[in-house]
């Protein structure tokens, strides 16, 4: 399973969802899978993507929100897992691209084990799953209670393609229209 396969499973399963992607691989994969759809692509601000997704989820509670995060990204902003556990938005799914390395900086190893799904479960109020296949990923996307955290173990590291250097003005306008219901 590659990063783009994970992003494709997300947009196939929930084409109307509002997605938020962290810098680097996650943003490139979501752009590739959604044909540059009207999502909230972060170009930097490492560690803030889950917080941004939580903000979106609480701002538009009638829409499904999916955060697509790198594992190094979530490690940097892991405190937000405690906030998700505290406030428990029923419309938020978090998917982590778990390959154990910092991708955009050249593939340096992450220290230690991330175990985000187990941490999420331990915190309470978040359904956690670690998946190793597209079938298991799609089942978890469909079936887990929410909020959920799915750690998608990547078996192959491949750069998805599109640039992660997005135009913030264009992203803001397209996403704002999507969140307002002007694009479905």
């Amino acid at each position, binding site marked *: 399973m590659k990063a783009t396969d994970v992003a494709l499973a997300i947009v196939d399963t929930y084409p109307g969802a509002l997605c938020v992607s962290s810098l680097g691989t996650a943003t490139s994969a979501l752009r590739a899978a959604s044909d540059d759809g009207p999502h909230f692509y972060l170009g930097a*601000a490492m*560690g803030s*993507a889950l917080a941004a997704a939580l*903000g*979106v989820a609480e*701002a538009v509670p009638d829409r499904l929100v999916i955060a697509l995060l790198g594992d190094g990204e979530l490690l940097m902003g892991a*405190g937000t897992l405690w*906030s998700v556990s505290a406030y428990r938005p029923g419309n938020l799914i978090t998917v982590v691209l778990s390959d154990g390395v910092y991708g955009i900086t050249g593939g340096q190893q992450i220290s230690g084990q991330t175990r985000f799904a187990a941490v999420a479960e331990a915190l309470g109020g978040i359904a956690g799953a670690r998946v190793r296949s597209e079938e298991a990923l799609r089942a978890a996307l469909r079936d887990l209670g929410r909020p959920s955290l799915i750690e998608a173990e990547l078996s192959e590291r491949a750069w998805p393609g599109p640039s992660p250097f997005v135009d913030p003005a264009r992203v*803001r306008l397209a996403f*704002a229209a999507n969140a307002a219901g002007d694009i479905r």
Partner: protein
Amino acid sequence: MASRDLSESPAPQPAPLAWQVVIADTLTARGVTVAAYVPDTRLQPILSRLADNGVCLRSLTREEECVGYAAGQRIAGQRPVVLMQSSGLGNALNAIGSLAVPYHLGLPLVVSMRGTLGEANPSQVPLGRAASSLLGTLGIQSFSVRSAAAAEQVTTGVTTLAFEAGECAAAILEPELGGGREGN
């Protein structure tokens, strides 16, 4: 380690000062829907008043997370406010500079000052002294509140810059306002 007695009743809250009421009521009148914050003694009466006014409160783990959360709220069409102590501004800079500013997500910031006039804790001084300069270097204007009379004008002006001009702007709660800084 002794466990905390959760049955204990919370400490009585001090009555809010006039400037704290004015700031909360002005934020409410300007359509603020949610307040993301990290706790601070002088901010607490503002937050209590906001809650009384029906504004949703989100106590988060770190100031950077507050900015990320507010960015998500803002891009989804809501009107958030971020409240923090000046010592937390250092924690928030990456999310401000790499997300709120480039995406033009105008966020109003309310910063309770430490480290300036009358500070007794040397560890608070460097960031307090630098707070307005740090914001200014990122292109964010900050405006001092030193009296109850100035609180409405500054709060209105900061929210106008944020919500109408799309520019982050900060209301700086100076020590002259009083309100019980820690250790004072």
